[in-house]
Each structure stands twice: as structure tokens, then as C-alpha cells.
């Protein structure tokens, strides 16, 4: 699996996710600076976490309008898988690549903590390493992760199997353990073709037993299994 990680001014989790990609695939991803016009031909594009452009204006808003994201959008629409985590999720949501939007956390504060996620489907490139209903533990670290979408969209994405992960407690009860007030406890959503995943939690920070556990590694292992 060849991958590229897009780096903006203010991105800060690019090395974390690069390490996760390398650990699972054996290959270092290409790190692509936002100002570079050519994105290499890859099997997976990653938009990582951080504070692109300082999160000024609105999280992800400036990055979404950068030239490189126009290219990412074109590739995504042509079918290249895109994994967008945290600030990356905010960016692809701004771009309309995935449904919904991320608002300020309900309690208004930054939250860094391990959370439990219930895997909603194993039927995707990104979640093939998990079973539906499986509960995994990965951290979140964000101030604007409160997922919102309107009633019609919510029904459409639920019916379409576009919800990848929901926040839950350790037993998979999604009425508990929501760290930010997200609607329907949504932690990660796909586009309609399930080739783009936007998620707030950080699977890349749960890939080693001594450093927060290995529950996030399944996502990267699954991608490698699906994309070669």
C-alpha cells in the first residue's frame, strides 16, 4: 500500500499517522507539503490531525480551500481512498467529501482522553480489520469534535451504512461515553461509496501496547489487507 500524508502549516499529527502507516504497511508514506502542486499516485491519501492554519476562521476552513485539497477532492471523487482524522475530518467535512459538520465540544473544552468506539460496520476498506459491534479503545484529542447533521442526512447515512464508529462505553452502549456531544454519538462517517472516512478519534495513537494499546492498529492493518 502506497500512501501520502498531506501536511499544512499547523498540522501536527502527521508523524504519528506516518508511523502507524509504516508499522502496518512496511512503507513510509510520502509527506506532501500543501504548497506542492503534485500529489503522487498512491493507494491512500491521509489528511492528518493538527491545527491547520491555526484553526483561525473556523477549523479546517482555510485548508479546505487550499490548492492541494482541490486535488485531493478530485482524486477522492475518482475513487482514491481518503482517511481524514481529527482536523483532517474537519477539513473533508468543510469540503463536503463526507456529510455533516464538527462543532465546538458541548462542554466547550479541549478533551484528550481514551474513549470507547463501537465499530458500526466491518464492511469497508477502513474497518475490515474489525467486526461490527466490536468495541475498541482509542484516544480523542480535540476541541471541535461535536458532530452535527440534520435529520434527513442522519437518516440517510444511517440507512446507507455510512456510520463507521460511534462513541460508547466499554460494553458498547452508545448512550454513554460520548466525549463531545456528537449527534447520535457519531465518531466517524463515510462518504456514500465508503471510500472516504472522516473520524475524530486517533487510531494512530493506539498502535503499541505500551503506548495506549493496539486497538487502533486494526484500521491500518485492514487498509493494508484491502489495498495491498
Amino acid at each position, binding site marked *: 500500500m502506497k500512501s501520502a500524508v498531506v501536511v499544512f*502549516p*499547523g498540522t*501536527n*499529527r502527521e*508523524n*504519528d499517522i506516518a*508511523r502507524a502507516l509504516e508499522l502496518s504497511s512496511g512503507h513510509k508514506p510520502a509527506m506532501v507539503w500543501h*504548497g506542492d502542486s503534485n500529489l503522487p499516485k498512491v493507494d491512500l491519501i491521509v489528511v492528518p490531525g*493538527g*491545527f491547520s*492554519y*491555526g*484553526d*483561525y476562521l473556523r477549523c479546517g476552513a482555510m485548508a479546505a480551500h487550499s490548492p492541494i485539497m482541490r486535488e485531493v477532492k478530485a482524486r477522492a471523487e475518482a475513487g482514491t481512498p481518503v482517511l481524514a482524522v481529527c482536523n483532517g475530518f474537519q477539513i473533508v467535512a468543510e469540503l463536503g467529501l463526507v456529510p455533516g459538520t464538527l462543532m465546538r465540544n458541548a462542554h466547550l*473544552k*479541549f*478533551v*484528550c*482522553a481514551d474513549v470507547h468506539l463501537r465499530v458500526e460496520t466491518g464492511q469497508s476498506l477502513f474497518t475490515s480489520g474489525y467486526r461490527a459491534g466490536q468495541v475498541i479503545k482509542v*484516544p480523542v*484529542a480535540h*476541541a471541535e469534535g461535536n458532530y452535527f447533521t440534520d435529520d434527513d442526512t442522519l437518516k440517510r447515512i444511517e440507512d446507507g451504512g455510512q456510520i463507521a464508529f460511534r462513541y460508547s462505553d466499554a460494553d458498547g452502549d452508545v448512550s454513554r461515553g460520548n466525549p463531545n456531544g456528537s449527534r447520535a454519538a457519531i465518531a466517524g462517517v463515510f462518504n456514500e461509496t465508503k471510500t472516504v472516512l472522516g473520524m475524530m478519534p*486517533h487510531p*494512530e*495513537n493506539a*498502535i*503499541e501496547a*505500551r*503506548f*495506549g494499546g493496539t486497538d487502533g492498529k486494526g484500521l491500518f492493518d485492514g487498509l493494508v489487507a484491502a489495498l495491498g
Partner: protein
Amino acid sequence: MTASESNPPVKLPNEPWITPAIVAEHGLSPEEYQRVLAIMGRDPTMVELGIFSAMWSEHCSYKSSKVWLKKLPTTAPWVICGPGENAGVIDIGDGQAAIFKMESHNHPSFIEPYQGAATGVGGIMRDVFTMGARPIANVNALRFGDPAHPKTRHLVEGVVAGIAGYGNCMGVPTVAGETNFHRAYNGNILVNAMTVGVVPADRIFYSAAAGLGNAVVYVGSKTGRDGIHGATMSSTEFNEDSESKRPTVQVGDPFVEKLVLEACLELMATDAIVAIQDMGAAGLTSSSFEMADKGELGVEIELDKVPMREPGMNPYELMLSESQERMLMVLKPGREEMARKVFEKWELDFAIIGRLTDTRRMVLRWHGDVVASIPIPPVVTQAPVYERPWRETPLPAPLAADAVPPPADYRTALLKMTGSPDLSSKEWIWRQYDHLIMGNTAIRPGGDAAVIRVPDGGGKALAITSDCTPRYCAAHPETGGRQAVAEAWRNLTATGALPLACTDNMNFGNPQKPEVMGQFAGCIVGMAAACAALDFPIVSGNVSLYNETEGRAILPTPVIGGVGLRPDVNGCVDIGLREAGLTLLLVGDTAGHLGQSIFLRDIHGREEGPPPPVDLAVERRAGDFVRGQIRAGRIAACHDLSDGGLLVALAEMAMSGGVGGSIAIPADTGCAAHAFLFGEDQARYLLATNAPEAVTAAARSAGVPVRPLGQSGGDTLTVEGLLTISVADLRRTHAAWMPNYMAGKA
């Protein structure tokens, strides 16, 4: 071009004549102003006066503390660079070095908590990456006033948000710290921030300028009018007018600092930089002065080339602004354009503002005219140094054995202590800090010390902690100074790390009061003894004096930030009891010392007696033994005994790991049960082991006292005959105070 007094500065339009009132406003005493006149041989211009004011402020000159700081041990075979540079540097093996320092931002944080704390974090990170190191961990030590004080909640909220806002955006994990509340900080909180970075040992950058004619380059943010006279402000006491000093608080932009960090590290990977220094306190003044002075050169700066945030700024403001996220560099000839491209890629300002000269003068030009011309060496060598009179704090008489009654109910007492402002969980705080970014956090906040894997370090890790017990320092400064160092050393040891060195952040009141100066002196003497006995030198530090409001000083608070090394991160232990059937062993002697204890304060409402004595030889022996047992793989959990004594430590171990335990008080302790359980005798650890015989045998041959107390297991904590309490109840109370308080419910 050289400038001498044959080329005196011009007077700027609207520049006032210097009067005694203007001198006083600049924080210079009449005697100090006489020194200025002697050095200059004429009246200074306003710009020159401002420069003297900043350079001779307590903050920049250490004029009251210098004679005492010299007593601290600062060397060891593994120390690469001690105090005097931007931060201290130690060898951590494999061709790598750790760079670290702690610094205060107390006054700004009280006036404007979010920006004050945020820029404190930004400043200390700059000190570390200026030397070439990528920051890998942030730490903060916070002291707030009485929780019931009307300002406290607002200050906690703002300071924590400011630290989070800056550190999170920088992508550096905030992994350790401490938070205390005491009425002595009601009008003067303490915000001490520490950064630890790692660098290849052959890529360390220093600040001494070199190379006649080399370009002096300004990079980073533009200069605005914020923070003018910050160094002078932080060198005076607070009064009711301090609120009006809000404009002297700097405003931080962590996004820009992140860009400055990446741009500097990118340029540092080339051979372009001769010297580099961040613009911290006293901004362009102190950075240019120190670089030229260390390099035994002169510098000529064209101030109109400095990138400015707003029109109409004048030389005085440019030299004294403390705008954040700025660096000053000396570049090798011919590397200027390459360096410019790096900074332009990161969308940062880059300006060649001056050249190094051989005049040993600082000459400032403004649109061609000389506006200041100061000889550099005398400003440093003839800076005022004071041997302030001091008065020793006598050791309080010991409390009589029967002076402290047992608690009415042990269960209630334990819950009250573990649910108190000082000992309750600070998760409310560290949940707001990204403590996981970089993926190297092996031991998270909430234990004795954080443990962070060293990037590209072959699996080795650094243990990091910050410690001070101000109530001990107030009762007897020398003992308190010893204890602060010993506790930091103990906390590092408790993870299995070898403590290597520390940084000190000396927070005290007005040094012109003999009792305050005596506190400072006593703490230094105690710290020096402990650093020497524990091979734990001070490699960097910061002094914050005049922490007083309306004439009342804070508790003396010499915070120690410690760094230790663990060769294999996988062998580290933390405080959590996670399995049943482990033997609980108490290491060290227990005399049941209740003077200045949390028990005495929180249960009986008395702040009395002497602090526990600190026997450094015993401390060393116990710590070396415990570290050896952890490294031998015999220890499942380890906790140092400090605030609240044995029972609080055991409760913390149970709450952390989720498994309870049962202990019995041995018959031959020689002290009352409550003194055994709550006494704060030093040099003690509580171990959980599945190899008690081997550990006990090793202790015997090491001459370290060890007692078995009981076993881990179950979901309750029991002290035979005295109390049984569920771990869930303990956790609930422990977790509750801080969020309830912040929600206005406590």
C-alpha cells in the same frame, strides 16, 4: 562602520528629558542610575535608559539572587551545558542530548490568565528549540489561591485553557505537573512551565555570536507594542494598580510558533546558523545584548528594518517589546538567501537587521541616525549585584507525640484528604492537555512522574516530574529546599529511571525583606545539599521574585523539574495496583512525622510544626535500592510516599489501577496508628511485588528497612481494625472535587 562617543546619538522628536521620575519609572534606583551615568559618560537617551532598565531588571540580571545561585551544584560528567544558556543540556546516551528548563510567568498570568499562561508555555518551548531540540514534553507547576477566593476559579479556568491552547496547537504533549491551592497565592498565582526536548548531541546550538560582519537576522512574528517592560513589571510587587498593567502582557500565537519551530529545525539541519537566541523577556534588547556579549563582539542594528506590526513604532518600543514568537540569529556569510527561502516557505518574516562589529558596542540606528550607543561589557560586568540582608527562619519546635489526636473516623478522614483541593484528581486539568500526541507517552499524567519514549532513541525513555512542598519551605526553608529536590529525585526513581539533572524555578516574595531573602537563602542551601548528595545537578533555572500583593508574600516555592533516564521504556512501572496477590512492602523508616502534614492541616486545621527531616544519605540508599529492584523486574507497582503519607499513597495506587488491598499496621512501629498512616516521613516508597522474599533479602543486604504490610486484591481498601472502603467510593470522591469546584458546586 564603528561608532564611538565622537558619534553620539541624536535626540528623537518628542523625546523627553530624563528626570528622576522617569528613572524611577524604569525601575532603576538612584544609585543604579549613577552607574548608568558612569558607564555612559553622559546622559543616556530614552532608548538607552530603557535598555539599562531591562538589562538590570531583577528578571534579566538576577541581581538579588546571583550570589546565592552560585552555591548550587551545576556539573556532572553527563552535563553538557549548565545554567547560562537558553536551557540546560544533558547527555542521554546514543549520541543524544536532552535540553530542558522551567520558567515562570506568574505576574502576567494573574493579570490576564489565558494569555499569561499561554505565552509562558510558548516562551519556554522557544528556549528549548532555540538550542536545536525538538520539544517532546511539557510540564507545568501551578499554585492558586484559596478555592473560596472569588478570583481563584476564573484564574484556574484561564490558566489551564491558556496552557492547553498553546501546547496543544504546538503538537507537544503536556504530560506532568502539579497543582496546589493556598490562600498565600490569593493575589499572586504561580504558573511555572517546563519543556523537555531532545537533540543529536552534535547538533546543539548556542547563543554566542561569532564572525565579524556576519548578518544579524530577525525571524518570526512582527514586533508590536505588547509586553513593553514585561521584564520590569515582573520585577516589582503587585498592588491594586496592577490591573492597569494588562497592556504589558504579551499575546501569544501558537500557530506562528509552530511555524517558527519547524522553520528553525529545518534551517538547523543545514550549516547556516552561527548562533541563535529567542527573544524572550526584554525582547530584542536582551537577545542582541547577550549574543554580542557572549561572542565578545559588538552589534549594529538598523531598527527601521525590524518587521513591525503597526505603523508609528519608535526605537524605544522596538527594543523593549516582548512580542512573542521571534528569534534572532547570526548567519554564516552567503547563507542568507537559503535561510530566507526556508522562512518564506513557512510564511514567516525574515529580515537582516544588522551586522556584527568589533566595537563591543551596541549601536542602534533609526533611518540612518544613531539613536543609542552603549558599551556592552560594562552593562554586564558592572551590573548591580546585591548581597541583600537576610534573616533565617528558625526550625519550629517539634510537636509533642500526643499533640495531634487521631481522626474521629479514619474512613471520613481518608475521603476528606483524597478529595481535597490539593490531593484530589487533577484529571479535569490534564484532560484539556493533549498528553498523547507524538505517541510516546508510556506513563500518563496522574502518577509520580510521566515517562516519555525518546524519539529515535532505541527504546529508551525520559521520566519527567515537577515537585515542591511550599508549606515545608515556609516552615523551614532549608529542609523544604532539600525536600523539593529529594521528592523530584524520588518520583523519577519510582518509575525505575535514574535521575540525571533538574531545573529550578525559584518563586519568592520581595528580596528586599530580610525574612524573604532568608527563605531564598535557606531553600538554596537545602537544594544545594540535596543536589550534591543525590548527584542531581541543576542545569537551568529561573528566578521569580517580588511575588507579593499588598505587602504579603507567597509561600516560598522553589519548584524542581527533574529529568531521569530509563534505558528500556518497557521496564518502567507506575503507581497502579492492577493484580491481586501482590505483597505490599513499605520501604524506609516511619517515625510518624505529623508536623506540616496534610493530615494536620486538612483534618485538624493546623499548619504547625517542623517539616519532616530529610536525611540525604538515607534517601539515596532507599532510592538506589528501589530503582535496582524495579530494574531487576521484581516490582509490579511503586509509589513514593509524600503528601498524606502511607494511607493516601496506598489509596492512590488502588484508585489508579482499580485493585484494592488489605494492610495491617505492624505491632512494633513505635508510633500511633494515625501517625503511621498519615505521617510524612521522607525517603519512603510503597512497592507491590510478587517476589517479596527476593526484594526483602536485597533490602537487607543494602541496609534499607523494608516491612511487609499486606496484599493487593479485591475491590476494597482495608486497614485491619481501622477502616474498609471501596475503591469505587475512593475514586468517586477523588474525581469529584475539581469538576464540581469548576462548575461552581464546591
